């Protein structure tokens, strides 16, 4: 690059305010946080959702024979990055039905996208960059999916067997403003496998178009992650920023990323200093009658909205109520009174002679025990 070109590039970066402040609109782009765990297997039979690395969602369409696993894996061959999101094909599917699809979705709230000025004459270009490494060369599709206006913009990219930084600049869209709220407005999507419902149309690179009547232009020309059990994908360093230049990846501390992730999902205990041990108290409350402990959980971050789901290990004896001694649960804990900052948990534990009104602890009795709330988009 000539000196003049470098100066021009720097000028554009300065004009777009890409220096200073927070540039990357992606949370957990370096895959540091995985509250749900570091590996998940047997995926693909139904919508997998969020499996390992926070904020990175896996989606499937019509039922496919293809199965896969995901993991947060250590990276040793990409300086500056220590973690990646790993997909491994465990069952191949070479007979692709029309409605099949496998994709990674990263979903963003509308109130966090207003700087794109989408739907105005000043609409900004957006640059998506990421590092990807695969077992062989694949052509995949990266898409900006405007869920408020049913509009998409797609760009193909081709992977290699080495870590490659892919940089895709998307045109500004003068049609369709984004809602200024906490709901989903844009998804950054990677199509990894798709049937003709998604591939049968015409590919128009970097062009905003309506998907009101069809999805068949969204994954045209891509390869299939499910074409062999040899296939695997590693991705990290996902960044989305205003402007036409990809600036260096904006690294954030683990603490910052964890707090940002907990707006959407909170799991306890997790990332405890000595790991998750038995007999750990995770909440205080009182006995509501002689058998039911009622406990208030204050979330460490204000969640995006009231949670829509509560998760636990599925085994009642993993949890206990303690007044002066522990009594194991007789059914799995339940939760309610969902607020964006708190929720109640109830655990039934009979036979310990508790008295209504006693102060009580909620405890985990097994390293597999946890409580979690989801306010994902």
């Amino acid at each position, binding site marked *: 690059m000539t000196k003049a070109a470098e100066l021009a590039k720097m000028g554009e970066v300065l004009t777009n305010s890409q220096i200073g402040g927070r540039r990357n609109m992606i949370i957990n782009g370096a895959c540091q946080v995985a509250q749900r765990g570091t590996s998940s297997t047997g995926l693909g039979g*139904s*919508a997998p959702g969020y499996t390992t690395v926070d904020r990175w969602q896996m989606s499937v369409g019509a039922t496919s024979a293809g199965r896969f696993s995901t993991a947060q894996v250590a990276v040793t061959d990409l300086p500056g990055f220590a973690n990646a999101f790993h997909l491994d094909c465990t069952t191949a599917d070479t007979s692709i039905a029309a409605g099949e699809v496998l994709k990674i979705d990263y979903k963003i709230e509308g109130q966090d996208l207003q700087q794109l000025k989408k739907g105005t004459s000043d609409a900004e270009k957006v640059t998506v960059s990421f590092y990807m490494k695969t077992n062989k060369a694949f052509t995949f599709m990266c898409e900006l999916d405007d869920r408020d206006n049913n509009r998409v913009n797609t760009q193909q990219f081709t992977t290699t067997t080495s870590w490659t930084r892919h940089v895709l600049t998307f045109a500004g869209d003068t049609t369709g403003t984004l809602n200024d709220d906490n709901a989903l407005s844009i998804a950054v999507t990677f199509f990894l496998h798709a049937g003709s419902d998604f591939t049968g149309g015409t590919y128009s690179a970097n062009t905003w178009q309506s998907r009101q009547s069809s999805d068949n232009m969204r994954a045209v020309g891509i390869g299939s992650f499910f074409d062999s059990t040899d296939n695997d994908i590693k991705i990290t360093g996902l960044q989305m920023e205003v402007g036409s230049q990809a600036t260096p990846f904006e690294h954030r501390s683990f603490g910052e990323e964890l707090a940002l992730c907990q707006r959407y999902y909170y799991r306890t205990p997790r990332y405890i200093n000595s790991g998750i041990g038995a007999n750990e108290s995770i909440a205080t409350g009182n006995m509501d009658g002689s058998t039911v402990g009622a406990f208030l959980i204050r979330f460490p971050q204000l969640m995006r909205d009231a949670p*829509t*789901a*509560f998760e636990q290990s599925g*085994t009642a004896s993993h949890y206990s109520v303690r007044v002066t001694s522990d009594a194991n649960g007789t059914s799995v804990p*339940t939760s*309610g009174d969902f607020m964006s900052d708190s929720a109640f948990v109830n655990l039934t534990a009979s036979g310990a002679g508790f008295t209504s009104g006693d102060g009580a602890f909620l405890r985990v009795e097994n390293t597999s025990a946890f409580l979690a709330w989801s306010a994902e988009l």
Partner: protein
Amino acid sequence: MIYGVGYTHSGVDFYKRVDDDGKTRVFCVAKHPPFQDWLRSNKDNLPNDIQAKVDDGMLTIEDAD
């Protein structure tokens, strides 16, 4: 994996996700996105307790995004 009617807390209905090993690991409210995805995918063959909630107007199957 299948969903069923779970419990009611402070007047809010919670639904349970029963995994293939028979364990219930998730309770959710009606608008939980994965639950709504499952409802749309299985709307013609819902379990009786879920279908009853739909028929009573207590549970709405939302359109996809």
